[in-house]
């Protein structure tokens, strides 16, 4: 028989107790309970906050399931007074949106999410009433299939020059990185990606340089490609938000403004950003009015472990920190939010199992919070993972309705030195699950003669005609 009792402590802080048979378990506070309820991952072990063993983890989940969702509105993990992310979460909480589930516990909320009552419409309306901590807690007591089934119900649609996130579609970021930002090298990967039908999410370059002149040239290159070929997509140079703002001030064509973000004020500070700095970049990008279908102008990247690696996690488990980053993203109506799930290394996510689990959690949490969540399904060579694990996560996320994935020539990013998904991987998951591209991009490929009516690559397509429309930098 299982019983639980909560004991009041000082000022909103409680210890959490749970009886299993004759044994009483005590968890210091909700933050500690969350950490101990988390599925095993190396980062929480590194932080010294993980459950000591399987039994403690299982009991923590039993205890967490009985916590009312309302409790997350009064018991903060990182103090309101010292953390602007906590303030953002609580100040922007929409009590009316929350009302339909306000009476539920974490466990009851899981049951509700999986029930027929949680329709796509209901979930869409609920998003503003949920906090990152609520969805993170719920994910911790869910199996992988629960994370997939629930996320799949949510439809998050965003627009710039095309439409991302429609049901039955999945977009891909064309990631044409080059170790020294060589224009022709980047162009080569762009042509390759387009010929393989990739690039509807964004054509996005991680530059090696942070020199404003170099970055300006890259922006103009991508802009020229998109406009000469009339591609219904958007460009992004993944440089710091303040650099993008400088580029905009200099009159450089910038479609999307990028930034890596995290779930605590201190971790964001380690990235050199704050909510007000993000706001400046957001407003600068919006002022250009370059989107033809919509004005979602931000591209954010996140990843479990970033707060811990900056020593800025405040004792909060890495998955909850990650979900808090989505609250930051949500404030800026992004076109794309990308969890770069296996990039950070084995000290945070040790192996394929942990990476797969984290990818599904992040996607679930982001979608429930109303974000266009994509995933860089990836690993480094020092993680216990390989492309088979990536295939598994890709297939699962495809089933879960992931908004977008990465497209990298042959999976091998020669600038950042890690392995992600390839142009071919996107073709695979489209084939297996019948997923289409963003409709405007799909139509462009068809009109260009690269794909057939079903969106499959045409065998004898004369893709070389792409060349004639390309700017001089592309001439081999």
């Amino acid at each position, binding site marked *: 028989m299982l019983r639980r009792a909560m004991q009041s402590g000082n000022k909103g802080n409680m210890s959490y107790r749970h009886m299993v048979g004759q044994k009483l378990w005590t968890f210091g506070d909700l933050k500690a309970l969350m950490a101990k309820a988390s599925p095993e991952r*190396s980062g929480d*072990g*590194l932080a010294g906050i993980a459950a000591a063993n399987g039994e403690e983890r299982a009991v923590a989940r039993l205890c967490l399931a009985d916590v009312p969702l309302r409790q997350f509105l009064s018991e903060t993990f990182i103090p309101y007074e010292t953390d602007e992310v906590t303030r953002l979460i609580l100040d922007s909480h929409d009590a009316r949106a929350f009302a339909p589930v306000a009476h539920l516990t974490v466990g009851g909320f899981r049951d509700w999410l999986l029930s027929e009552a949680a329709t796509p419409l209901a979930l869409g309306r609920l998003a503003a009433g949920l906090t990152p901590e609520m969805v993170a807690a719920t994910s911790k007591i869910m199996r992988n299939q629960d994370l997939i089934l629930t996320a799949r119900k949510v439809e998050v649609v965003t627009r710039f020059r095309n439409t991302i996130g429609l049901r039955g579609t999945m977009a891909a970021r064309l990631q*044409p*990185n*080059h*170790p*020294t930002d*060589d224009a*022709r*090298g*980047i*162009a*080569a*990967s762009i*042509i*390759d990606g387009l*010929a*393989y039908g990739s690039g509807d999410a964004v054509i996005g370059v*991680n530059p*090696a340089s942070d020199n404003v002149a170099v970055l300006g040239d890259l922006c103009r290159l991508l802009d020229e490609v998109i406009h000469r070929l009339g591609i219904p997509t958007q460009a992004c140079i993944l440089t710091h938000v303040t650099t993008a703002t400088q580029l905009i001030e200099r009159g450089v064509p910038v479609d999307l403004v990028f930034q890596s973000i995290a779930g605590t004020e201190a971790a964001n500070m380690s990235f050199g950003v704050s909510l007000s700095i993000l706001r400046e970049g957001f407003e600068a990008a919006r002022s250009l009015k370059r989107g033809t279908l919509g004005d979602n102008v931000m591209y954010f990247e996140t990843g479990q472990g970033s707060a811990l*690696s900056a020593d800025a996690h405040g004792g909060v488990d890495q998955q909850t920190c990650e979900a808090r980053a989505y609250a930051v993203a949500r404030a800026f109506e992004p076109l794309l939010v990308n969890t770069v799930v296996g*990039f*950070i*290394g*084995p*000290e945070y996510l*040790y192996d394929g199992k942990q990476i797969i689990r984290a990818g599904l959690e992040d996607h679930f949490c982001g979608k429930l919070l109303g974000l266009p969540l994509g995933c860089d399904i990836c690993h*480094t*060579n*020092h993680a216990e993972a*390989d*492309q088979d694990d990536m295939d598994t996560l890709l297939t699962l996320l495809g089933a879960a309705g992931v908004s977008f994935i990465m497209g*990298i*020539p*042959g*999976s*091998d990013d*020669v*600038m*950042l*030195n*890690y*392995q992600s998904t*390839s142009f*071919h991987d996107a*073709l*695979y998951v*489209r*084939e297996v699950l019948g997923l289409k591209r963003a409709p405007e991009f799909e139509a462009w490929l068809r009109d260009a003669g690269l794909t057939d009516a079903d969106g*499959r*690559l045409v*065998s*004898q397509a004369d*893709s*070389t005609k792409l060349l004639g429309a390309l700017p001089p930098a592309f001439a*081999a």
Partner: protein
Amino acid sequence: MNDDTPPVPRIDPWTMLRELTPARVALGRTGASLPTHEILRFGHAHSLARDAVHATLDVQALRRDLAVLDCDLTEVRSAAEGRTAYLRRPDLGRRLSDESRISLDAKRASGSDLVIVVADGLSATAVHANAAALLDLLVPAIRRKGWSLGPIVVATQARVALGDEVGAALDARMVLVLIGERPGLSSPDSLGAYLTFGPKPGRRDNERNCVSNIRGGGLVPPRAARAILWLIEEAFRRGETGVALKDESVDIAIEGASPHLPSLP
């Protein structure tokens, strides 16, 4: 695919793109998938990188390779016992084992301008492939400059920051850590060189300078040695390493460097 075409992988019409980038472009396809050869070629590259991560540094072989330099050579281990602990707990890889700390304290002597640490990091393969060639150039040049050189410290299960404790224990003004970098798919043997002025535990990564991607197909040892010597000289002149030095060394370091490692080995 047309019914009359045989089921062979379609050759990519863009093979000329391969000359423009080291990226894996123009791979061709069979249906939606990679041709057999490309799948297997990728698997081979991944195996080399994985093996490099798990390779053990052969200290005896390294001793033989470095004998010609006529340096005092000493061994230390980090607090990470075994590769699994090393990969899971970077904090342990940044600290000396108790044994090694005691043995280094005994060697403290009168200090030196520079201590060189040769560390396995994430690729012992990189150390075996490049450390001796680099040190053959560096050590004589350092002596010509008149800087006093402490022992060469060979460190296993080591992260970059282990050099801070080693440098402090040996009372060095500066420490140079040569360490196997996180292997890339096309570069399992890449060595990194990290220079830290005033080494002591707690130094931050922005207080170091790095010359990266030192290997045959990247920044070759003669060019790497030049870049490192320039940094050493500037660091002694200014009395610091770190961000300030980085800006001006960019032209030297950029040649073949891979500047955006997400985290240090």
